């Protein structure tokens, strides 16, 4: 008897299994192919705008992705560094060999965690409670909870031109039974679609026709452990090229051969809006003369180059022509053809905010099965599902992060409250309070939770507490120390190209000036780490904006704290719009704040609900 069975060994599955095992629960990870654990079937990168911050949050909560990415990256960039602190985010080129290898090593060395190579056929369910799984070979394995992280492996079809093959990524075996089982149990199954571009043999590319894209000179890490494994001075570059007129002509001439444009007539899957195929881009943005493509190395151990921006479901002969129309790729050798993949997912609105399903108790789902896209989005859900399954086993309340606390909170709330139409990718604009959800302060926001849960070691926690104290100390120093309006003081200011003073000014107020960087002042106060300096600089410079965001978030959270009784009968609320009534009945929001975020529920409906709760709910119950 296991405490937790995790079905699937992708990014969500690894985090889920590690979290529950580390929280002292006997965990079994079931995967179709042990060699595919923590596989990166699409782009060879971790992070990106907003996604990089999610990785930091995973790390602060005690997840593995940040550390594992640090061990496997060969190029690192801070995105949006020219913009404000709120939108900075890390993006790494991660090695597709090293990343899974390191993750497998970690899994294997974790106590309470076993790995089994098998396919799950069905869930064992009694009285709407999950009790374990039945494997395709008929074996039954019992457990108290099950976490499904099946990725794209539910009835996946690989689509290339007019062919449809029932296979998972890399031609892996797909699960033919599990989604039917879920459907029978009461889940609404939807079909989603995503795609991946061709891989090109590095030696066949003429890089002289491309633009080199390098990493940043400053070393960065995802993890707050701050261990740098890569050589900052010897990062592997990417390369930038653009599509040509000829590329566009080839695509237009062959459009009807693409699976999505007539090659197949039974496409049901909805593809991601934010990651369109190259034929989509050319059809939808027909006035654009060219599109950007990145050549990204997949690994330092082999020669595949990932052609980012060129995902397609054209037949292979057209793909050959398309690739050869690109500058520098005239003689390119395609090692793997691009494909689209269709797969089953559940309706995420059938979940609670804890990621436990509303349909079957003790069953959790995370990752692409919930309709998201992306390694980071999957990993953070896996972590939360693992944490909450464990907390439930301990009889504790689930960890539910607020929208003002973490991108993870935004993501899960969006999934549960709004549901998804197309695969969900995190964007900074999905967060209301991104000035609070920064790359630099993920540890300040979440380490405490990670420590309370038991996923953050005492050592790491002590480091966090020290950092927090240093931040306070430095702020205090800045508030006390002043520059006097004498010739010495004003000379100093003149040197920094800032306005001279008539009255003395604290370093704190001086730092508020946009032209003053904290580095300019560092001889005037004690010694602090780079991280501390960064945090303090941001919190001083943007103090007004941060305070305002905090205030807004407080108001927002107040609405989230207005609870809707779980047994509320929406049919008793007169005048509710029927669309709103239906959605409220399906989603059953737990708070007024959550109800407000449901599309199709209008302010008037909210008024009616609140009036009903205030005036009539208690009466109706009597």
């Amino acid at each position, binding site marked *: 008897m296991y405490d937790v069975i995790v079905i699937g060994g992708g990014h969500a599955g690894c985090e889920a299994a590690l979290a529950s095992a580390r929280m002292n629960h006997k965990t079994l990870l079931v995967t179709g192919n042990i060699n595919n654990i923590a596989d990166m079937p699409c782009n060879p990168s971790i992070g990106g705008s907003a996604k990089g911050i999610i990785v930091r949050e995973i790390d602060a909560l005690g997840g593995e992705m940040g550390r594992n990415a640090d061990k496997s990256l060969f190029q690192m960039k801070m995105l949006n560094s020219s913009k404000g602190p709120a939108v900075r985010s890390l993006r790494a080129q991660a090695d597709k060999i090293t990343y899974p290898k390191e993750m497998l090593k970690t899994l294997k060395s974790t106590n309470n965690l076993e790995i089994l190579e098998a396919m799950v056929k069905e869930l064992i369910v009694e009285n709407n409670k999950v009790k374990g799984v039945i494997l395709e070979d008929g074996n039954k394995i019992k457990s108290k909870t099950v976490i499904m992280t099946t990725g794209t492996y539910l009835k996946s079809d690989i689509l290339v031109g007019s062919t449809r093959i029932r296979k998972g990524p890399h031609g892996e075996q797909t699960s033919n039974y599990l989604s039917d089982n879920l459907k029978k149990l009461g889940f609404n199954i939807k079909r989603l679609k995503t795609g991946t571009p061709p891989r090109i043999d590095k030696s066949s590319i003429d890089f002289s026709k491309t633009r080199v894209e390098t990493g940043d000179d400053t070393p960065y890490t995802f993890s707050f452990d701050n261990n740098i494994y890569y050589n900052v001075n010897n990062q592997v570059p990417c390369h930038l090229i653009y599509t040509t007129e000829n590329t566009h002509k080839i695509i237009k001439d062959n459009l009807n051969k693409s699976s999505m444009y007539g090659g197949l007539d039974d496409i049901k899957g909805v593809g991601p809006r934010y990651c369109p195929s190259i034929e989509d881009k050319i059809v939808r943005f027909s006035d654009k003369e060219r599109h*950007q493509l990145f050549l990204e190395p997949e690994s330092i151990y082999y020669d595949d180059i990932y052609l980012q921006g060129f995902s397609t479901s054209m037949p292979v002969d057209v793909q050959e022509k398309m690739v050869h129309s690109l500058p520098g790729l005239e003689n390119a050798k395609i090692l793997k053809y691009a494909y689209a993949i269709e797969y089953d997912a559940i309706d995420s609105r059938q979940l609670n905010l804890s990621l436990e399903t509303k349909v079957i108790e003790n069953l959790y789902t995370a990752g692409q099965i919930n309709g998201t896209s992306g390694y980071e989005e999957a990993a953070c859900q896996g972590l939360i599902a693992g944490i909450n399954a464990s907390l439930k086993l301990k009889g504790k309340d689930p960890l539910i992060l607020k929208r003002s606390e973490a991108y993870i909170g935004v993501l899960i709330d969006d999934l549960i409250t709004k549901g998804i139409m197309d695969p969900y990718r995190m964007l900074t604009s999905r967060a209301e309070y991104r000035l609070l959800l920064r790359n630099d302060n993920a540890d300040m926001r979440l380490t405490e939770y990670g420590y309370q849960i038991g996923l953050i070691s005492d050592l790491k926690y002590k480091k966090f507490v020290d950092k927090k104290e240093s931040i306070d100390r430095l702020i205090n120093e800045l508030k006390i120390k002043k520059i006097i309006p004498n010739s010495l003081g004003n000379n100093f200011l003149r040197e920094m190209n800032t306005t001279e003073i008539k009255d003395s000014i604290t370093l704190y107020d001086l730092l508020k000036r946009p032209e003053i960087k904290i580095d300019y002042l560092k001889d005037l106060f004690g010694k602090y780490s780079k991280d501390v300096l960064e945090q303090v600089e941001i919190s001083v410079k943007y103090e007004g*904006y941060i305070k305002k965001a905090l205030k807004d978030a407080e108001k927002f959270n107040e*609405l989230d704290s207005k609870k809707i009784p779980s047994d509320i009968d929406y049919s008793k609320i007169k*005048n509710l719009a029927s669309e709103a009534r239906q959605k409220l009945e399906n989603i059953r929001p737990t708070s007024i704040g959550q109800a407000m975020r449901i599309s199709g529920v209008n*302010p*008037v409906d909210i008024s009616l609900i609140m009036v009903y709760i205030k005036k009539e709910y208690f009466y109706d119950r009597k």
Partner: protein
Amino acid sequence: MNDTICAISTPLAPGAISIIRMSGSEAISIANKVFIGKNLEKVNDHTINYGHVYDGDELIDEVMVSVMREPNTYTREDIIEINAHGSVASAKRILTLLLKSGCRLANPGEFTERAFINGRIDLVEAESVMDIIDSKSEKSLSMAVNQLSGSTSNKIKDIRKKISDIESNIEVNIDFPEYDDITVLSNEIIKPKLVEISDELHTLLNNSKDSKIIKDGIDTVIIGKPNVGKSSILNKLLEEDKAIVTDIPGTTRDIVEGSVDINGIRLNLIDTAGIRYTDDVVESIGVKKSLDLIDKASLIIFVLNNNTEITKEELDILNKIKDKNYIIIVNKIDLEKKIDDSNLNNVVYMSTINNIGIDQLKDIITKMYELDKINIKDFNYLSSARSISLIEKAIISIDKSIKAIEEGMPIDIVEVEINEASEYLGDILGINYKEDLFDQLFSNFCLGK
């Protein structure tokens, strides 16, 4: 929520037709109980039907009853309107009878609240309904009607769209930074756009402030020495005996108010105790009040006596009003001229007894406010204090974003303020949700509609 409400929706003034309105699922059946004439439950939709209202055997009134079935009604519920031809008293009796027969008395603004809740009108429209009810002059009414057509909503939507265009471009820049072929919105690019938006909001706001004069009227104080004819002038304007007019100095100690519509401009007239320096304690309080009113009023009508010389008190007042909008009336021109009017401006010569000068006074007021120059049709304005303050807040946010640009703040910080402006505009349109918004809004409505 679904019960049937009723109220007298016309002013409780004698002479006019009174309308008693009902809304709700039982409106027709309840009306049918008290109505003798055609069977209202069987008559065609949107018809008006002649008959009588009876309380038992007792005839209360001869009426016309409009039957309007949902959803094509103001509230999207069944609506009955009873046009009663008799006195206010009989309208009240009909109301009482309906309440007895199963209706509930409507709360202030409840008809409009239902219209809003049932999706018939948006917030901006709901507010302008309040204006129609409130509007006491013709000009103001036509402005309110214009707003119902949604031109103000459209203007705000238009500005909001401009803001969201900027926002979405910034978002794309942030979330897809690797794409160098998307225009990167720099502070330099967006600054002129923000200035333009700020200007448009200012125009909207100024129009709104002008419109307040039209809608709420101009506070006009009539001031002068005792017995100079203030109250007579007031009465001439009001054309009824509201103020106490006597020839004993000092009788108008209380301030008497009345409103008058002069060629579409509403004046809120404030009569004052006559101003003279006195030992009488009670009267001196009145005098002080009168002097204070000069500061508060938007228009001062200062009345002098043709038959006496200008006194010390009057010179003080002339001095006090010289920087304000004022009109001087030299009254009692039927008597011998003793006044030295050589230094007076904006003078109307008047004899209230002989009806001379009142028309000139009205002309001067009309010209002063030049309403003809304002094209009401193109006039986008926001009526309520709430909308005006939201526009003001939006302007502050936009101006802050411009300031943030000047301070060299990064674009995502600048965007925080831009987002906020967009939210304020959304609030006016009722697009964003604010908890107490509805309570606040609907309690402002007067009873009836």
